[in-house]
């Protein structure tokens, strides 16, 4: 009797106790419960795009692409990271958080793309679907590398997913040639996989034309950098003329082989927050004011708009339109000396850079003249339907005008070259470029045109760098040595923690 009770009690206890100590994920996706369906793959592709929407990345576009150039002045009491970039403080730049973040988010996109590509390649999804996903992922990975190279030069290469501690350190690419070859091969592959696919539904996505555009930009960067003897590029084995030809080849495809993208005849439409699907936008980020967190929505307009009284105000355009906008923090300011370079008829100086703000009735409520703020400001980023500080203003990553000027610069002072640069000028209300320029003068004129056309869109520093003119054009960069001017150093954290360096 006693033993029977005992045995049955023990049996019950053991049953309760039997247990498996393996941990199962709850409430989050992991390697073994994801990438199983096409919807998963689509979602993972959007996750890759998503890497570019965080302020860690979007702030870098302007803080690196514009702030360190003579186009931009900085709010005097802005934080240290922006000050270091604006002032070209080479001594401490390796710990600059803006640069570190921009570096990191480049790789965040790369790793997301790597995992996606690996998973989709070995999947049984239909071929067309695989091409679409892998093609877009390859473009995003290439875009990241291209940006990383332009900012940092030789960078580590991660072409496989990071899954464990051992994968977190990757060596530098052996040479710039090798690095560019990798990126170019990816893009050519993507260009074959993708279709031209432009629609309202695809705002914030890339297609075949984006792949062509990035290829054109890459070839032009190599060509001009090598021609100008820029560090690292001058050691490349590639031929300058062949590179210009390749740039012209790929940009030419964008100019001539498709009809979905073209120069928007109306300049201000390009910056209309409600027309992100406009013909100009080859690659534009996706933000929307209905988002819950910054990154989902954008505060980019606040970086440019003046504070005035800390309340919203109206902007007045040439045609008399009054457009409501949020006030801002006037962090990035149009430098008066750069403003002065615009031709007096240039709509890009007249309609896209302002120095007065208005009330709803069209009365001036703040201006430089009144002392409400000190600098002109660009209105490329603004959203009349802003909600508090939430806007839909999106960074313009690749515009048709950029590729048109890329094409012009690549082909030089040819008929097509003049045609495209003059098309851009005409839209801005300017006369055609002087005819009969030499190749060098023509290219210089195109690059100057790029400054006026693409300022505050994150391009100009790279134009300065590929022409080797950082130290001559940017007052704060005077006296820097070649290393400091050509590339930013790898972030200190990367240097310390990447064991493969």
């Amino acid at each position, binding site marked *: 009797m006693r033993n029977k009770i005992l045995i049955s009690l023990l049996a019950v206890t053991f049953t309760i106790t039997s247990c498996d100590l393996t941990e199962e994920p709850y409430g989050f996706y992991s390697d073994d419960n994801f990438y199983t369906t096409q919807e998963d793959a689509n979602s993972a592709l959007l*996750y890759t795009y998503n890497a570019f929407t965080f302020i860690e990345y979007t702030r870098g576009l302007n803080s690196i692409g514009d702030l360190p150039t003579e186009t931009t002045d900085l709010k005097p009491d802005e934080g240290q990271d922006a000050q270091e970039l604006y002032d070209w403080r080479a001594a401490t730049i390796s710990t600059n958080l803006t640069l570190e973040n921009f570096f990191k988010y480049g790789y965040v996109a790369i790793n997301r793309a790597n995992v996606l590509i690996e998973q989709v390649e070995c999947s049984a999804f239909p071929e067309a679907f695989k091409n679409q996903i892998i093609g877009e992922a390859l473009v995003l990975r290439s875009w990241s590398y291209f940006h990383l190279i332009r900012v940092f030069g030789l960078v580590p290469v991660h072409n496989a997913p*990071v899954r464990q501690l051992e994968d*977190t350190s990757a060596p530098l690419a052996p040479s710039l040639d090798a690095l560019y070859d990798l990126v170019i091969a990816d893009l050519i592959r993507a260009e074959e996989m993708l279709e031209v696919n432009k629609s309202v539904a695809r705002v914030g996505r890339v297609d075949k034309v984006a792949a062509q555009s990035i290829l054109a930009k890459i070839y032009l960067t190599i060509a001009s950098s090598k021609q100008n003897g820029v560090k690292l590029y001058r050691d490349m084995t590639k031929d300058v003329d062949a590179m210009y030809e390749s740039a012209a080849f790929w940009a030419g495809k964008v100019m001539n082989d498709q009809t979905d993208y073209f120069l928007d005849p109306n300049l201000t439409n390009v910056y209309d927050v409600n027309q992100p699907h406009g013909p100009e936008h080859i690659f534009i980020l996706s933000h929307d004011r209905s988002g819950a967190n910054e990154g989902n929505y954008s505060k980019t307009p606040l970086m440019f708009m003046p504070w005035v009284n800390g309340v919203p105000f109206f902007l007045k355009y040439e045609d008399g339109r009054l457009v409501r906008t949020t006030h801002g923090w006037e962090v990035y300011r149009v430098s008066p000396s750069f403003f002065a370079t615009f031709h007096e008829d240039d709509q890009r100086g007249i309609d896209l850079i302002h120095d007065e703000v208005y009330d709803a009735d069209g009365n001036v409520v703040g201006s430089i003249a009144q002392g409400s703020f000190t600098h002109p400001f660009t209105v490329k980023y603004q959203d009349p339907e802003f909600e508090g500080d939430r806007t839909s203003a999106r960074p313009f990553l690749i515009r048709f005008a950029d590729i048109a000027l890329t094409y012009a610069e690549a082909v030089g002072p040819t008929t097509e070259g003049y045609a495209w640069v003059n098309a851009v000028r005409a839209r801005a209300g300017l006369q055609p470029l002087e005819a009969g320029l030499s190749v060098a003068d023509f290219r210089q004129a195109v690059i100057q045109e790029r400054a006026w056309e693409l300022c505050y869109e994150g391009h100009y520093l790279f134009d300065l760098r590929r022409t080797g003119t950082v130290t001559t054009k940017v007052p704060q960069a005077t006296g820097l040595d070649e290393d400091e001017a050509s590339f930013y150093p790898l972030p200190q954290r990367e240097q310390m*923690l990447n064991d493969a360096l």
Partner: protein
Amino acid sequence: MKKRREKLRMAFLVIFTVFMGSLFAQMNGLTVRGVITDTYGEALPGVNIMEKGTTSGTITDGEGAFSLEVTNSDAILVVSFIGFDTQEVAVAGRSNIAVIMQESQLGLEEVLVIGYGTVRKSDLTGSVATVKVDELQDTPANSIERLLQGRSAGLQVVNDSQDPGAGSTIRIRGGSSLEGSNAPLVVVDGFPLGDAGDLKQINPADIASIEVLKDASAAAIYGSRGANGVIMVSTIRAAEGTTRVNISQQTTLSRFDSKLKRWDDPLLMAMLSNEEQRNAGLQMPYRGVTDTQGTYYPSLYEIQSGAWPYNTRWDKEVFRDTPVSSNTSVSIGSANETTSFNLSLNYLNEQGVYIEDDYQKGTVNLAVDHKLSDFFSVSTSNIFSRNERDRNGGLAYWRNPLWPVYDETGNYFTANERDFGHPIARTNHVLDKTNGLDYIGSYGFTFNLNETLTLKSQMNYKHGSTVTDRFNPRDYTEEGFFRNGAAHIENWQDEKLSSETFATWENQFAGIHDISVMGGFSYENHTIKQSQLRAYDFVNEALGNENMSAGNPESNVVGNNLTKRKMLSYYGRANYKLLDRYLFTGTVRADGSSVFGENNKWAYFPSFAVSWNAHHEEFIKNLMVFDELKFRASFGTSGNQAISPYQTLARYGVENYFNDGAWRTAIGPGYVGGYYGADSRYREWRGIPNRGLKWETTTQFNYGIDMAFLNRRLRITADYYDKETNDLLYLRYLAPSSSYDRMWVNGGEISNKGVEITIEGDIIRRGNWRFGSTLIYAQNRNEVISLGDVETTGIQVDNNTGMMYRPSGYEFTQFRQTANILAVGQPFNVFYGYRTDGIVQSLEEGLAAGMQGYLAEPGEFKYVDINNDGEITTDDRTIIGDPNPDFTASMALNLSYKRIDFSMFLNGVFGNDVVYQNRLDQADVRPLRWTQDNPTNDYPRLYSGRQLRFSDWFVEDGSFVRIQNVSLGYNVNVDNLEFISNLRVYLNATNLYTFTKFSGYDPEVGLDGIYWGGYPRFTQYTFGLNMTF
């Protein structure tokens, strides 16, 4: 069939015997009278006298006299009284009996609860402290931990919050983890519940005893949860042969112990505000204009002349005059030979000092033990508790007194559209309430296989859940303003199921070898489930959060998550005692946990202890000095499962990307594990698994001595310990090109060394006088030995000393740094900042000292240029304080005379520093500012928007001695009242006075030493009544 008949026959026999017995007793009834005295011949009132084997008994009256009817002349009386040895006295035909009670040899026969068993105090090898719970019962508390302050050496209790229902911070022998919990494990009746600090489910009046397991020998039996020590709580069980009904009522009144720091004179406030702006070259606010935000600031003239008539006493608006709390307990306990039960009910109502800031709790506790047969018994305990917290704290009593409560039209006066601080508006319109439900149950059986072998098994279940309702209306709150009304519901549920099964074998051989062996296993499954609902943008706010679908569906936010831990353990202990003199204990535990990495699934924790009862040796006995002399030594390891679940799995994140006109769910590798940078604007990416992740391991040596002298009236216990914790978990940084920021790894090392001394004395035991005292002294030296691998931890280096450190804790916006750092070679959380050398008195002096710009002007802080480089930079920082006390000490005094008892408890913390981070803003500091006419060296000038540096000016000595508790009680003479056996009334005061140099309200702050302000500490007066039937 035959068996059944036998049973019936047995039952009949039993009934017959009992019946005949009582009949016989009636017939042979005999009344015994007598007087009971102590060895000094003083009569002892209240002594229990029972006839052995029956339920009849009585107690002595005020003169020590008793009278009891016994069944026959051979009856045996059992005479018992607290503090005296129980005696059995044979009546032997006498009708008048005098009994002299011998005072007990205190302590030695005490039985202590340790992990998976009990042990006689004299057989103890490890370091285990007992808290005398009955001394705490006069002070009401939501959870017992609040009362443990200073009551046990090495147990540190910090009650830094006075909010209703607030918990405490508990440490045993210092902190031993950087990222994990440092709270001890609390075990209630054999059920390991979790972190100590908020044991609100259990009414303190239901607690019978508390033991604190401090050293490895005692705590290692709890393995990977034992590194922070263990607090064993045992609840009340009815004693055999008694029936007791107890009612207790406590009513508490709270008052601030010091004056509020507020502006009595609004004109002075306004003048200083103007001065502050003017000094910084800014427009003065109080000049009778509306500023850009829309706030009208009256001019000084308007204030002075009375044209601006308002001077609001916001403190009167937001504080209750005297918060009243009450605590009512009723308990019924009864036990016979086979069944014992205890049922208790408690209702606690705590009023916060802020209006409508309340806490209520009801608890029901039912414990039943039943012996089914000689070899088999079952027991259960069920605690059910429900609480409700209505939050309305933090109201701005510091609000500008120039602002009235209501405007002319009777609406709330708000300074501008974005004035979200109106206390009355918030009180009336903001909803913030949490309802909690807790259940703790255990069901167990004990099986005595034979004389020596016992099997015990216990199933435990804990449930805790809370529902929080919040609504922030469009007007008066920031969130509501920006989101057009904001409604929240938050659900939280914590469930723990565990089972413990162990067998104990005890035997004695040849009269000199005592052996006991225990072995068992346990299983635990702990799940925490949370969900949140948020709705915004309400057309009509009348429903608050009652119907969240009334918000704009597009802005709804939902969230939920769950964490689960599973643990399987095997444990064992062996005790061997030779000749009652030499004691050996060995324990081992193996813990397997789901949160450990797959390469490190099992952890093993051994411990070993020896002790020597030297007072049993002839040569010690011959000294005639020691009643007890015992040496103890122990060594062992225990662990801390500081790992959150799922750190060893790859984890994907979920984000949104706006595509094709809508938000699309985006999923992929890496998730946001945290935020960093100014305003926490940057994301920290995690999700890369560490498959080798493991527990933190603490190795501890303990050497102790127990001594008793003078017939055990003086008792001393002293311990020295040396604890070292390694494999500390920390988040290492990864190369940014990996796309991940951080991952959990093991590394890092901390040491804690300390001394604990407890001295107890029964100073007076004469006649009706009793006077005793307990002194407790504890010191702990804490040192960070390593913060892990230098490169991967983000360690910074102090350029002057080479000291490696890492900022820790809250980053203060005014200082742009944290006050605390974790530094190699230093104690936990030392303060790191600048030294000051008074105030700059002239521009030349300021410039010479290395200051620049306006910071060199007269009236600014004069920082010390520590590295002598001619300027003040971040390299001039050094260690400027230590929040860890040099030592803590407490003294309890207990005095009684006849029916009156008096006790006083002093608690002190010595040698710790406190950061008074907002000292510059205080109403009692600002008027003392530096001016041309007051060139003080103690206070800087007022200067709006000054870039402050964190300096020693903000660091103060946080030492204090508090008259923590004074209690005066009277046991009413109830001899003539048949139905009442005990009636005690008392008056109890907590925090009667605090001796300190600290200039804020109170120096008892969190362990990081940061003082946040808030409101003064309470002095609380409790009127209590305790009745037993």
